[in-house]
């Protein structure tokens, strides 16, 4: 280990101001602090610090996403093989590896484009590289359909990183969830590639794995089916386990639940936000079910589509969600309720989670403002009631 440390120390002067590689200082800093905890000691204020830092937090979120990612890969293969009718003869390895090959390029494109912009931006602004994109970079591939072309994905990532994050001031300053902005960009700019019946199953075989399906093959997500009042052929068991068509990471409730446990246990996600999303969604769905406007039982709204994934990984994003504890309850409730309202009331959008979260992101500062204002007026009253 000390060899590596010595090597880093040796090359450091090249990257410092005046060094021949000073244009890549942000990359060097990023790598150095990634490999070793910085040895900087406190200059003022407290003399000891908690071991937690934003690198650790972001890494934990990425770890929490791994079950959904791995299952997503498997499900991509599963959908392809079952569409071709060869699922019974395919091995687990074949199925997973096909999915792996189909998903990997998306992750690579997402990280290369996103981190590339981050590094360049950090260098330009003379700042440290911030870790926020580590999470967004893995979220984005998980919330797009498997057939989303890479160039479109790259475009969406670039748009989201620049216009949703960097121009607001970087990680911690953005108003909207970066990954969802990327998805919204795709959704509105390339609607035919993002929704409909023909995007959810990978149709081309890769390196000999998987099956090539005819271009005309279609397979709707259960939610789209419900929106068109079609019969849904998936069992509750399939929906919970995740063997249904959908965006790559969103289908398995089990995998998402494992992620949720990691996030809640480490305290990175707020249980208040997460719980109130489900409460809001459940209540709205129950009301629609009672009134006869929704044809499915209330709980299916919570396990279908991106609802669970959004509730666990998107709504709880600390930067774009409400920051006050009371505000988190309201914020989550709005997301849940709104997502179901959009699904049921708007025939054009079978899925409402993305729009609901973006909408709530917009209102988070207002929610917090009201909560904080209560404290302010309490203090002001104390003065007048002296």
């Amino acid at each position, binding site marked *: *280990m*000390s060899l590596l*440390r010595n090597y880093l120390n040796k090359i450091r002067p090249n990257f410092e101001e005046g060094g021949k590689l000073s244009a890549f200082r942000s990359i060097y800093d990023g790598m150095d*602090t*990634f*490999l*070793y*905890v*910085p*040895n*900087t*000691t*406190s*200059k*003022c*204020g*407290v*003399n*000891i*610090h*908690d*071991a*937690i*830092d*934003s*690198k*650790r*937090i*972001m*890494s*934990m979120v990425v770890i929490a996403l791994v079950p959904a990612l791995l299952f997503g890969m498997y499900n991509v293969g599963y959908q392809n093989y079952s569409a071709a009718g060869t699922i019974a003869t395919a091995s687990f390895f074949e199925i997973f590896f096909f999915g792996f090959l189909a998903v990997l390029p998306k992750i690579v494109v997402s990280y290369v484009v996103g981190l590339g912009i981050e590094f360049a931006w950090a260098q330009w602004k003379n700042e*440290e590289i*911030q870790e*926020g994109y580590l999470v967004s970079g893995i979220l984005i591939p998980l919330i797009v359909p498997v057939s989303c072309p890479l160039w479109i994905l790259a475009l969406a990532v670039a748009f989201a990183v620049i216009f949703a994050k960097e121009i607001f*001031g*970087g*990680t*911690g*300053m953005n108003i909207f969830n970066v990954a969802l902005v990327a998805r919204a960009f795709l959704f509105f700019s390339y609607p035919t590639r993002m929704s409909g019946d023909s995007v959810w199953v990978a149709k081309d075989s890769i390196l000999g794995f998987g099956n090539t399906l005819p271009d005309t093959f279609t397979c709707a997500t259960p939610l789209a089916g419900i929106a068109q009042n079609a019969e849904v052929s998936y069992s509750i068991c399939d929906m919970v386990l995740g063997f249904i068509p959908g965006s790559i990471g969103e289908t398995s409730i089990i995998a998402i639940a494992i992620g949720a446990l990691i996030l809640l*246990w*480490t*305290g*990175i996600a*707020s249980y208040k936000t997460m719980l109130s999303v489900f409460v809001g969604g459940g209540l709205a769905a129950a009301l629609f079910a009672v009134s006869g406007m929704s044809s499915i039982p209330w709980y299916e709204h919570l396990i279908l589509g991106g609802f669970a994934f959004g509730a666990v990984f998107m709504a709880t994003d*600390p*930067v774009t*969600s*409400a*920051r*006050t*504890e009371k505000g988190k309850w309201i914020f989550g409730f709005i997301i849940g309720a709104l997502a179901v309202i959009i699904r049921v009331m708007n025939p054009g959008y079978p899925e409402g989670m993305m729009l609901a979260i973006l909408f709530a992101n917009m209102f988070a500062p207002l929610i*917090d403002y009201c909560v*904080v204002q209560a*404290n*302010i007026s309490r*203090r*002001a009253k*104390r*003065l007048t009631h*002296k």
Partner: protein
Amino acid sequence: MANVVKLKKGLDINLAGEAEKKRICLKPNGKYMLQLDDFVGVTPKVVVKPGEKVKAGDVLFINKEYPEVKFSSPVSGIVTEVLRGERRKVIGIGINADAVQNYVDFERKDVRSLDAEAVIAALLEAGLFGYINQLPYAVSANPRTRPKAIFVSALRDMPLACDFEFELEGQENDFQAGLTALSKIAKTYLGIGRRQSSGALIGATDVEVTVFDGPCPAGNVGVHVNHLCPVNKGETVWTVEPTAVIFFGRLFNTGCVDLRRTVAFAGSEVAKPAYVDMLVGQELATLLSNSIKNDHKVRIINGNVLTGRPTTKNGYLGAHTSEITVIPEGDNADEFAGWIMPRFGQFSVNRSYFSWLFGKRKYALDARVKGGERHMIMSGEYDRVFPMDIYPEYLIKAIISGDIDKMEQLGIYEVSPEDFALAEFVDSSKLELQRIVRSGLDLLRKENA
């Protein structure tokens, strides 16, 4: 039975090297320096010259803003230097102590017979008034305004803090005299901890005793003020650390300025952590020689690990310092891949580390920041360790953006930098909260002047 205020929010950090309840005997080397930075908000005017002879209790410098506030010498001896730093700012006044100490006689007084004016006049005359702090602004108190209340916290619960009950043994009369004196000025509140059982605390007279039951920072005087008598705009509350109350009591009971205090000498790098009696301004060299475990780089802190200031082996005991803490500096730790390693030796409130598993284990933490500074990312981190009716995150944001109206509305008059010490410790974005709060308080003080 005293009132009990239960607090849930907060965090006790278990550090290795707690001071054992026995006193080390120290032979002072005669070097003293009163450090002016210890008296926050004071613009000093030095009134002695090098070579001048002073007695313990003679004035060394005064507050330019309020010239009646004087600061007296802790020892008798010869002034050796007026140490100046950048832009000739006075840093300290050095004194070489006499072998036999001479005290200025301020005459004994029966505190019970004094009124508010007489108490303040006596403290001003003896150069002890500057040991009183005030809220708002968390600065040395202004003698021309009368406070609505005075707060004394006898509970020190910062990591490795000096146990005040231990210090109090044998000084009960002086402590009570000091409390009685303060109670003449305004209603005086004494905050104590749940485990404190000394009769001089529980049975203190002339004051309202309140028990604060909860984790650190239950002992912060700012928390007491916020719960019992919050400061509104235009109001003033004085806060006095308990040792200063003993100083005041000694002045009235003996007529002398005697700034002897008990200091906890603690920290993971101290060979035998224990208590030691020292005078304010005493050189630390005698204490520190041969008592630090390893030769490797250490950080010596004038105060506790959360609010103290780093000093050197040749530093001097601060005026408000009740601990000398020594921890590893850690700037050569080279810890690999901290973002993913289990790091069992590290303490964290976050459960991605394993300190939740080890219960009462004691940690030897070093002075590393352990991460880069970021914008505020996580929400609610400060809240969990901030037992006051204030939104710390929003207050910090208001200070950073320089929004004076917002700062006032969010309660900046009720806080001092030390209230944010724990929040600064747990902050994953590694912001320098105490510095930020101090800058906000200074800004407001300037604006309202």
